[in-house]
């Protein structure tokens, strides 16, 4: 028993040391640093297009690298590639397992990937020879559901799973290159850095971790949330991390000084965050909530500057296009809306 006490004291003292070290590097708070910037006025976005076609809850969507294409996955077992400007469906891919939880579009535009309760990540080749879309690879090695997948290039993909690990795959051989283990809860989401050298993952152990793709090591663990981290994304300059959690708050962390900068919360918001996306410059943060709305936050001042209300059920996924001109929200009411 004496040993336990000793260990407990040591753990506590180390945690205090970390807090002191972090304070030492905090030469200013975000509030002070942005005191001089102008306030963003009320942002009003309107629904410009509604993409109809899914028959069940939409669980995920992802913009392509081009300016108007996106892919969405729904529990009716379909992966649909949309041309958002004309609202046409470019491809409607039937899936083997209808319990899909995530989808991703490769930066080159040639591949899409999806996965879910089948524990596998299926890669589809959109630019196949006779125009048919076929399964190119099925990456099966996870022992839990696939919660998120993101392409690093046409030959590599990172997946996060409910078995608490993330895996970097080599698509051509279909094998795992690196397994990133360290989370203590289901990994719910992941985001790849703009320079493709690292990625971040958020999990049900209330933390987010930053990993180096080449070394396979976890470089930062960011805690502070009081419930599962559902959504995660890089700040556009690659030095910050945005997380959204079931405790109804979003947080911004700084990677270089290894601490939390600001929390986006409001007493009127009690429902958890399901998805988030920063605007192109990073000044605005769009977060989708369980109460069927998307709130737009001023990322620097942590104030709400707008609401996107238009869905009849939970907003499950949100994405900002690569040129920052439009944002797309997908919901359990089976519609995708494009806002501008």
């Amino acid at each position, binding site marked *: 028993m004496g040993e336990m006490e000793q260990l407990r004291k*040591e753990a506590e003292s*180390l945690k205090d040391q970390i807090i002191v070290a972090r304070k030492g590097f905090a030469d200013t708070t975000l509030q002070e640093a942005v005191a001089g910037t102008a306030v963003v006025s009320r942002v009003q976005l309107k629904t410009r297009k509604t993409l109809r076609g899914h028959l069940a809850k939409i669980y995920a969507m992802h913009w392509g690298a081009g300016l108007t294409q996106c892919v969405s996955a729904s529990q009716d077992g379909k992966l649909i590639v949309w041309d958002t400007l004309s609202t046409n469906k470019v491809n409607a891919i039937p899936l083997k397992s209808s319990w899909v939880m995530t989808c991703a579009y490769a930066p080159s535009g040639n591949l899409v990937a999806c996965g879910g309760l089948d524990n596998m990540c299926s890669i589809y080749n959109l630019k196949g020879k006779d125009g048919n879309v076929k399964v190119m690879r099925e990456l099966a090695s996870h022992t839990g559901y696939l919660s998120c997948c993101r392409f690093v290039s046409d*030959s590599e993909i990172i997946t996060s799973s409910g078995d608490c690990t993330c895996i970097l795959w080599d698509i051509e051989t279909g094998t795992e290159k690196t397994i990133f283990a360290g989370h203590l809860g*289901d990994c719910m989401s992941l985001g790849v850095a703009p320079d493709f050298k690292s990625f971040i993952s958020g999990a049900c152990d209330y933390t987010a971790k930053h990993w180096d793709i080449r070394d396979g090591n976890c470089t*930062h663990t960011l805690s502070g949330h009081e419930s599962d981290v559902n959504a995660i994304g890089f700040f556009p300059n690659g030095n910050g991390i945005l997380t959204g959690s079931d405790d109804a708050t979003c947080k911004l962390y700084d990677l270089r000084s290894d601490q939390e900068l600001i929390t986006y919360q409001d007493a009127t918001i009690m429902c958890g965050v399901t998805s988030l996306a920063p605007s192109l410059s990073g000044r605005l943060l769009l977060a989708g909530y369980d109460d069927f709305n998307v709130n737009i936050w001023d990322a620097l001042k942590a104030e709400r500057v707008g609401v996107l209300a238009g869905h009849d059920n939970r907003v499950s996924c949100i994405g900002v296009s690569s040129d920052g001109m439009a944002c797309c929200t997908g919901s359990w009411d089976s519609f995708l809306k494009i806002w501008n």
Partner: protein
Amino acid sequence: MTIRNVHDCGQRHRPRVACLKKVEALVLEMQDPTSGVKSQTQRLVITTIPHALTGEDVVAWIAKRFNVDAAEGCAIGTMMVAFGYIYPLRDHKRLILKSDASLYRFQTPYFWPAQQWPVEDTDYAIYLAKRNIRKNGVLELHEQEQYNNLHKWLNHKWDFIVMQAKEQYRAGKERKKPDRVVFDCQERAYWVVHRPPPGSVSAMDLGLLRLIDPNQEESETSDYFRRIIIFTEQCIMRPRVKSSVSLGANPWLTDDPAYWDLNSLTIDNPTRMRVERWTFSFGELLSDPRGRDGFRLFLKKEFSSENLAFWEACEAVKWGTASTIHEKAQQIYKTFLARGAPRWINIDGKTMEVTVRGLKHPHRYVLDAAQTHIYMLMKKDKYGRYLKSPVYMDYQRRATDPEAHNFTETQLAQNAKNRRPSLSPIILRQQEEEQQAKLEASGPVDLTQVMSKLDKRNMLKEGQK
């Protein structure tokens, strides 16, 4: 045969809805006799039942409490109704808050959604049976279907269920009329929330369940503490760097693209902060393409540029497509590793042996050992010399120090008019590839050529002697 999924890790008992605690706190505030929502009495034919609220009172209270507008107050109220903390007295199947004179009542805590026990089918069966006893044929279509299904699945318990239903019905009759009405309403509201009619949006719909059990407590053994200690020690050891790329004028505020131009890949005079960043570590220098350019220039002057070229070629193998690995590895062997190669690199015998052996069956990481050796060589020797070299000093001298903007109003307006679209990323990538090709074509110093020329000269000299 029905397959009951018991594998929900206790999540049905305490749904993964962290917001319920906050809503409960709000409900308690609303029920406060002095500062809460004003209640009225509800009049049924003869009986009057106290503690009813009107929708508009609830909306007004919420709007005042949180200082929001009525529409948002209505949305928050609807959320509370959807979770089952407040239930409507008329139109009980639609779980929304109407901001007019329609009446609502607070649900008793026994029926709040965050209780410790799951929502059991047995209880639902008892409830439906009770309603059947009271008045035959009063069940809705979906309730009738559910009742039939439950009858099939819970057939082994059916006597118990019917007996319970009869008992509860009899106990209910013995209550006073107002209490009976209230209890019936509460129970009915509870089941509307937890067994919603098909096609309606339910707040209890949590989507796919997660594997980790939120209720599981981790036991605090010494192993647990050791893990925490190791982790926190690593946390402390990690260096916390405070560096930032230069802050020029913010292009989003001033419409001046100078910030982006100064930090682009092809700039001649990088900013001071960027140049300083190269001194932090060798990795920082290599990860910045502009830094690598400068380093390459320095190495060329020292006639050791094959090291950096080898390192970059190894990176290309590691990150390239699997089909080109074989070809690239062969190319690297011919150019850098073979005896008499034009750009022979200096690695020790053991590493060379291991690498050559591996190259017989090349895979992505076959050149890792050699690459690490060269990396350490460059880091220990060349990096230090580079930082003291005239090439680097030149960069430091020419480094610009961009300041925050001091544009006047008219200048800002002018900038806004002069906004131009930036180069398309496709064109930028083409430019990069062209540069790369030019670099390779311009050719490194070909050692064999040089050596053979020197040999020829020596032979001539000897011949002359």
